[in-house]
């Protein structure tokens, strides 16, 4: 236990700002997960690995002398097609089965991706330098790397664009219709197969953007995907499906929670505290649901 946070008030400000910037990025990944969970009823365990793959795309651009920030445009395009390919090869075979089968299938994809990335890119931890510099606030007591600000800004931009797209475009409407009732949508002429593929592709593209941002702000490694899956899973179950403001809020909440856990409990409990929170929320939700059930009886 460490109560430095309370001795130095500036640390509190720092932790909140860091947490919010980080949370926005988490929310972007979680939004992709919520989307395809809602539409296809699939919990994608490979979500984090898609993120890392997107990160590698930005990293390789950086290696070849292209500024990694362009990765936020290139990575989603490539990842969209990766997503479609995964859908065609695996997901379309499990999309109507029960949740357990889809979890197993995506778990398999996750392991495969980890090993393939390790095989192709090596086991080294890598990062892409953006050279964006730093913003100092409050007499340089609070420091915000510009790369973090950049990544939060891009995340918000993509989320907003996607919301508009979902509302206005034909495909967006079809996706929403399928999410509400796949059978009815089918009867009314929506090609649900196409909608599923597009949804999975869009989710992968969002992961690509997030991955590119992570390679600019943090580090990437073939085996680092799982924490991102867990975080987005958690954000989604807190916010509920199809609740975009909820996803954004719970994303930021998780970011701030993580930062404070880091300061108070120590960095070693950072990821652990996320897992603990997940368990608590699941238990709480179950408790709440069981009360509702009794009421129905």
């Amino acid at each position, binding site marked *: 236990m460490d109560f430095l946070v309370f001795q130095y008030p500036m640390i509190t400000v720092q932790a909140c700002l860091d947490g919010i910037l980080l949370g926005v990025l988490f929310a972007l990944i979680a939004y992709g997960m919520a989307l395809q969970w809602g539409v296809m009823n699939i919990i994608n365990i490979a979500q984090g690995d898609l993120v890392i793959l997107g990160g590698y795309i930005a990293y390789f651009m950086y290696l070849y002398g292209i500024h990694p920030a362009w990765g936020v445009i290139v990575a989603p395009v490539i990842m969209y097609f990766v997503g479609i390919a995964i859908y065609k090869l695996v997901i379309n075979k499990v999309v109507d089965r029960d949740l357990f089968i889809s979890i197993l299938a995506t778990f398999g994809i996750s392991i495969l991706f980890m090993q393939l990335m*390790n095989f192709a890119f*090596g*086991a080294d931890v890598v990062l892409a330098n953006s050279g964006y510099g730093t913003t100092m606030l409050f007499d340089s007591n609070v420091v915000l790397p510009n790369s973090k600000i950049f990544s939060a800004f891009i995340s918000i931009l993509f989320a907003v664009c996607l919301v508009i797209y979902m509302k206005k475009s034909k495909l967006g409407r079809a996706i929403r219709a399928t999410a509400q009732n796949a059978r009815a949508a089918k009867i009314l002429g929506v090609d649900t197969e196409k909608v599923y593929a597009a949804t999975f592709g869009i989710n992968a593209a969002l992961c690509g953007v997030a991955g590119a941002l992570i390679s600019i702000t943090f580090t990437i490694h073939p085996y680092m995907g799982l924490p991102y899956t867990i975080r987005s899973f958690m954000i989604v179950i807190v916010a509920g499906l199809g609740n975009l403001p909820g996803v954004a809020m719970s994303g930021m909440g998780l970011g701030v929670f993580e930062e404070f856990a880091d300061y108070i409990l120590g960095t070693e409990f950072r990821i652990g505290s996320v897992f603990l929170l997940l368990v608590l929320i699941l238990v709480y939700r179950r408790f709440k649901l069981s009360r509702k059930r009794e009421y129905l009886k």
Partner: protein
Amino acid sequence: MRLNKIILSFVSALVILFSTSVASFAKVVGDKIILGAAISLTGKYSSNGVHTQNGYNMAVDRINSMGGVKVGGKTYKFDIIYYDDESNPKRAAQLAERLISQDGVEFMLGPYSSGLTKAIAPVTEKYGVPMVEANGASRSLFTKGYKYLFAVLAPANLYLDVAIETAVELNGGKPVRIAQAFEQDAFSQDVRLGILDAAERTGSKIIIDDKLPKELNDMAATLVKVKQMRPDVLVVSGHTKGALTAIRQIAEMKVDVPMLAMTHCDAAKLSKQHGKNSQYALCASQWHKSLTYKDDFFKDGMTYAADFEKEFGYDPPYQSAESSAALLVFKDAFERANSFDQKKVRDALAATNMQTFYGNIKFAPGGQNVDKPMVLFQVMCDASGSCENKVVAPLKWASAKLIHPIPKWSER
């Protein structure tokens, strides 16, 4: 159909029989001494696993081409059976078992990393197979009373204590305030123990003692604390990702600290890929090519580095150098034992006292090398922005003077 099946099973039975009978000949066959090694060619240690394998292969080729090993008036050549342990301790232990009981290997080389060496050591010990390892530095390997384990490298607790001593010395002999952040794996925790010892010896105080998680990619919290509490030394050890994360975030957050000491800087390619961001970082290393140790096979560090680069296309990290040294130790021990009896070879290994291009080698009863100090290098950049690692401590091998304290970010 049925006949086909019978033929098939007959043939496969023959194949199995043949392969096992060939395998059981392996150990010292004809003019070959066959060593066994489980190495991480895939999985999370694969890059360092490959460095290890390249080091082994380089030394095998060199020793074989320069006359081989002379035992009992006959000349033998080295050969190595490799298996991929997938960076998995359980798999490594199984493979050690297989190398010894199926392939009949009587002498082993170590795997990469302390964790895997820990998994293999009980197996080699059980069968009385001498193992010379070059990549397991954890102190706990050397306190278990293993009789057949020999490590050519310095134990992990000695990695960074030189840095603390240097800081105290530069502080006019007065104690310093230390901030430290370590990953929670066997190796990093041993480095931490070394720092604790050094702090106690010098009366220094540890004001921040953070533990880093395995999935580390953000240590901003630790660095904010460092900014507020202004320690004299910041020590970070968390393998490559620890080094990379620290360097990136220290530069981004403009954290000013008079001394920054780390491990795994060369594995993280700090000076090459992260240039000015990593400037002034002090790094612990088992070996540096500019050291002036000598031997008959590789001459010295510079020649080794040049030869290695020619063969594998990159500058050798210390993981490769120490792996090559393991073969030199084996050769020396075989020749002194003048026998392939495992016990005699083991005794000869225990009595090793030699110099290689990698450093002096002399084993303590626990099996660790006590005759080779760690070196510290500092990342130094010239005006054009190209950076290089220069040895700054111990003074005997220093090729540059330590820059201390590190200039503030606002003055760079």
